[in-house]
């Protein structure tokens, strides 16, 4: 009988449950799709030289970890449903049903809904998994055709995991319902906004920020001492003075205001309201952020520590700002209402402000946390293309040859134990393994003169390579040849060397002298071919190699010797692993006798590991970001839907008073726009500030490894995902809201 009742209940209250099902579906779908990548059955049509095991192993636990955050959301939505159904519970109890049975009935109901959403979620997840796979394949530069399939192990873990969550939450609910009083259940819908609870978070934050402000004043004093003389003479004199004093005085005001408040409290012998204090502090915070940003923007004379330090302050004050702004907002609206008669009495402002204010006063903390969550989510989406692009670009820079071995002197190396360039063991091993080489090359690198070799030194000087070796390397990497006149030298630069550094080097080294022969700079001196990292010394200040005519090399001392090889056919991942192990074993034996570094790099292994790491970063950051967005948007949307009975009542009143339907639609739209818009606006502004900094910080990487066009394309894609997510949440909330308050 009860089972029948539960089923019928579930069917009848489908509308109430819609938001529950949709949220769960998204959670299940996301979990399934990301989890499916680490499934045993995950077959991707990858060619032999790739192997996904590494990625699969690394993915599993972080995905489960991130999903754990979603439990919070399931609980939240569950509470919302619970509140909506309390009146029903009351009636059931009044009719004579035991509270135990009522609770059990609700448990069965939610479980049915949960199971439905698991089923739909898994189907959704299977589709989404295919989209992910095609993305993964594009990382490996392979084509992929989507198809539909379910992986038993992933299905099992999804079902077990989510059922466990439902049952856990279900039991908590049963306990809660059994303890409820009928009177409270009946009143649940009419619950007015609870009075501002005693707030401890904000006073605590204010005290912490005061301490930080005092610290900032100290830093400001140090900064002032450090740069005073140089800066004031500079061309930007006036702005610098403003910036310095601003950074010094504003935090002082911040701390001072708090001190004044405390003194006033002591004099009056009671705790004064912190509302106005928060408004003042919010104002100071904005100014402090602006002035700290002036330091972050930098001055040619400032060093990294100073700008980074200022950036830390920006971040801390931004977090405080996000909390303070929501706290002060309702007070500000109150002030606005009393001060501005003109706006207040215009159209429906009065009503909208009332609506927002009523919700804001009881939800300040949630709103701040939501804004923070959205900021975190947007930041994740900005960092994602930077990190994964970095990993991929770096891979292209490194994995150029099938085999690269570099040998180089270290602090133990003596003149007699310098690298000897004996790579016969490599060819022997390869032959044993049945690998046929298409092309191979032994490259020697020379000290510019004998004196540059210093025994026992940790650092290596910049070395030279002969033109013919250099050209051969280029040919192996698929590039064109370069020319060099007899009295010229050229340079091959590492990707991370900035244009300024190159300029500086070129200015200091107009000519170089080798064996009394003067060489001048060639016309083309900024070669940045991707030739692997082994050509640069492991331990030198500037990653650059000097290219000199062959004839000059004969008498030079060899300081570094590399081996490069390209195989006839592509190596499978397993073979590469075997060769790698065999070669490393031999290298270990040899290094016992020879005191220099030997480094082995295999393309297949590099690519596998590099792509796996890039993918891992990309997928996990993406998953994390999406989860955060889903959480914050769902909570925002529930905020609007939760009190629809209150809302309905209010809209009925104003409709009777003669507000037209079009106006009501306008009110709904602007009310929801503000509610969704505020946290997103604050998070967005903060994200722009922080994002700008990340980009500035990784400028070199974006420009050289990722390519700025590719980066902005990827960023644009991410932003589009955010917008699509936001719009779909907004529209569905809007539709549901209008359904909920349907008048008459």
């Amino acid at each position, binding site marked *: 009988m009860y089972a029948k009742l539960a089923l019928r209940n579930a069917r009848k209250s489908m509308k109430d449950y819609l938001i529950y099902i949709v949220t769960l579906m998204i959670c299940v779908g996301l979990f399934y799709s990301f989890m499916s990548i680490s499934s045993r059955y995950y077959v991707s049509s990858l060619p032999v030289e790739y192997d996904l095991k590494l990625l699969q192993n690394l993915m599993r636990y972080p995905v489960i970890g991130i999903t754990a955050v979603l439990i919070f959301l399931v609980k939240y939505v569950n509470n919302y449903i619970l509140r909506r159904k309390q009146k029903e519970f009351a009636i059931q109890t009044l009719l004579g049903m035991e509270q135990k049975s009522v609770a059990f009935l609700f448990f069965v109901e939610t479980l049915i809904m949960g199971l439905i959403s698991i089923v739909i979620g898994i189907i959704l997840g299977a589709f989404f998994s295919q989209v992910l796979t095609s993305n993964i394949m594009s990382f490996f530069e392979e084509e992929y055709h989507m198809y539909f399939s379910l992986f038993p192990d992933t299905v099992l873990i999804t079902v077990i995991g989510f059922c466990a969550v439902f049952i856990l939450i279900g039991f908590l609910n049963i306990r809660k319902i059994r303890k409820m009083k009928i009177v409270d259940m009946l009143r649940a819908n009419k619950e007015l906004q609870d009075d501002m609870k005693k707030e401890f978070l904000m006073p605590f934050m204010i005290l912490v920020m005061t301490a930080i402000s005092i610290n900032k004043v100290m830093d400001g004093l140090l900064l002032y001492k450090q740069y005073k003389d140089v800066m004031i003479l500079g061309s930007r004199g006036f702005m610098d003075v403003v910036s310095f004093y601003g950074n010094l005085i504003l935090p002082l005001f911040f701390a001072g205001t708090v001190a004044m408040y405390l003194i006033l409290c002591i004099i009056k012998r009671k705790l004064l309201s912190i509302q106005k204090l928060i408004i003042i502090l919010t104002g100071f915070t904005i100014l402090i952020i602006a002035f700290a940003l002036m330091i972050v923007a930098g001055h040619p004379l400032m060093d990294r520590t100073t700008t980074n330090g200022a950036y830390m302050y920006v971040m801390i004050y931004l977090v405080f700002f996000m909390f303070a702004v929501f706290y002060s907002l309702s007070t500000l609206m109150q002030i606005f209402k009393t001060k501005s008669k003109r706006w207040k009495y215009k159209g429906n402002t009065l*009503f909208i402000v*009332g609506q927002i204010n009523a919700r804001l006063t009881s939800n300040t903390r949630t709103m701040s946390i939501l804004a923070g969550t959205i900021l975190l989510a947007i930041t994740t989406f900005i960092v994602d293309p930077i990190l994964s692009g970095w990993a991929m670009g770096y891979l292209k820079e490194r994995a150029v040859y099938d085999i690269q071995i570099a040998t180089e002197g270290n602090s133990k190396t003596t003149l007699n134990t310098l690298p000897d360039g004996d790579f016969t063991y490599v060819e022997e091993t390869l032959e044993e393994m049945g690998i046929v080489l298409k092309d191979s090359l032994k490259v020697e690198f020379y000290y510019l003169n004998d004196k540059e070799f210093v025994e026992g030194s940790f650092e290596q000087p910049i070395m030279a390579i002969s033109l013919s070796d250099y050209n051969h390397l280029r040919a192996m990497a698929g590039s064109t040849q370069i020319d060099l006149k007899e009295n010229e030298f050229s340079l091959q630069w590492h990707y991370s060397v900035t244009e300024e550094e190159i300029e500086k080097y070129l200015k200091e080294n107009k000519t170089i002298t080798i064996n009394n022969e003067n060489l001048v700079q060639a016309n083309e001196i900024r070669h940045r071919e991707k030739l692997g990292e082994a050509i640069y010394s492991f331990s030198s200040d500037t990653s650059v190699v000097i290219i000199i005519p062959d004839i000059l090399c004969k008498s030079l001392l060899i300081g570094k010797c590399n081996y490069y090889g390209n195989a006839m056919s592509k190596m499978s991942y397993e073979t590469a692993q075997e060769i790698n192990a065999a070669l490393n074993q031999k290298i270990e034996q040899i290094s016992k006798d020879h005191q220099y570094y030997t480094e082995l790099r295999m393309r297949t292994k590099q690519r596998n590991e590099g792509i796996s790491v890039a993918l891992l970063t990309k997928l996990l950051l993406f998953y994390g970001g999406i989860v955060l967005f889903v959480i914050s948007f769902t909570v925002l949307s529930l905020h609007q839907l939760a009190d629809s009975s209150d809302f309905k009542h209010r809209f009925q*009143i104003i409709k*009777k008073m003669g507000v037209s339907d079009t106006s009501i639609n306008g009110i709904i739209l602007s009310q929801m726009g503000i509610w969704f818009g505020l946290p997103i606006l604050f998070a967005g502004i903060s994200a722009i500030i922080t994002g700008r900094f990340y980009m500035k910080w990784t400028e070199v990487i974006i420009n050289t490894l990722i390519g700025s066009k590719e980066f902005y394309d990827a960023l644009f894609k991410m932003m589009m995902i955010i917008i699509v997510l936001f719009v779909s949440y907004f529209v569905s909330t809007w539709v549901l809201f209008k359904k909920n308050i349907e008048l008459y």
Partner: protein
Amino acid sequence: MKREVLKIDHIQKYYGNKNNITKAIDDISFSVYEGEFIGVMGASGSGKTTLLNVISTIDTVSAGHIYLGGQDITEIDDRKLAQFRRENLGFIFQEFNLLDTLTLEENISYALTINKVPAAEIPGKVKHIADKLGINEILNKYPGEVSGGQKQRCACARAIVNKPNVIMADEPTGALDSKSAQMLMETLISMNEELAATILMVTHDAFSASYAKRILFLKDGKIFNEIIRGDKSRKQFFGEILDVMTLLGGDLRDVR
């Protein structure tokens, strides 16, 4: 002769389908003149709420016409109804229906703002009405912070502040204790006499009805009787109402 503000002309309202018709209003006609305070009484199901709804343009009639300020409201375009309502009608409800998110002052001024009254005039108008109804002291409080009687007086202020043609009061004392109810009825009287408001009040409470100047009794969707107070004292009038109610078959429970 005073101006005719509201004219009900042979209206009917049916509910249900072909086989089972309920006549909520069965051919009712009457007129309300400017400055009148008219009560409509009747037991549950007599059609008084339906009557109020059709006059309020919240519901439509099945047949007949309603003229408000000379305009036939059964013929008004749906899109203009809201505007018509806010320009011609004021409402007082049993459940007060104040907006809980706004202070009393804001509740009253909101009625003015949706009527597009210039911002500069609003504070003055609100103060004037609040003075008249004695709620000046509590204007900055929220509905949740004042008593039922004060809430209902604020609702009265909101209803009259736009100077509507007719104020529709639907069981205004229904949710009040007897002391507050008496105070509210006196407020309505003063609105009627000092501010010249035309009031149409629906009630099933004989005590409240005794404050009106004319009472229509409804039974099964028809006008059953009509009595006029004239120069009688309120006590006499009250007795008269009770007599009609007994005739009406109204249960004594309805009489309080």
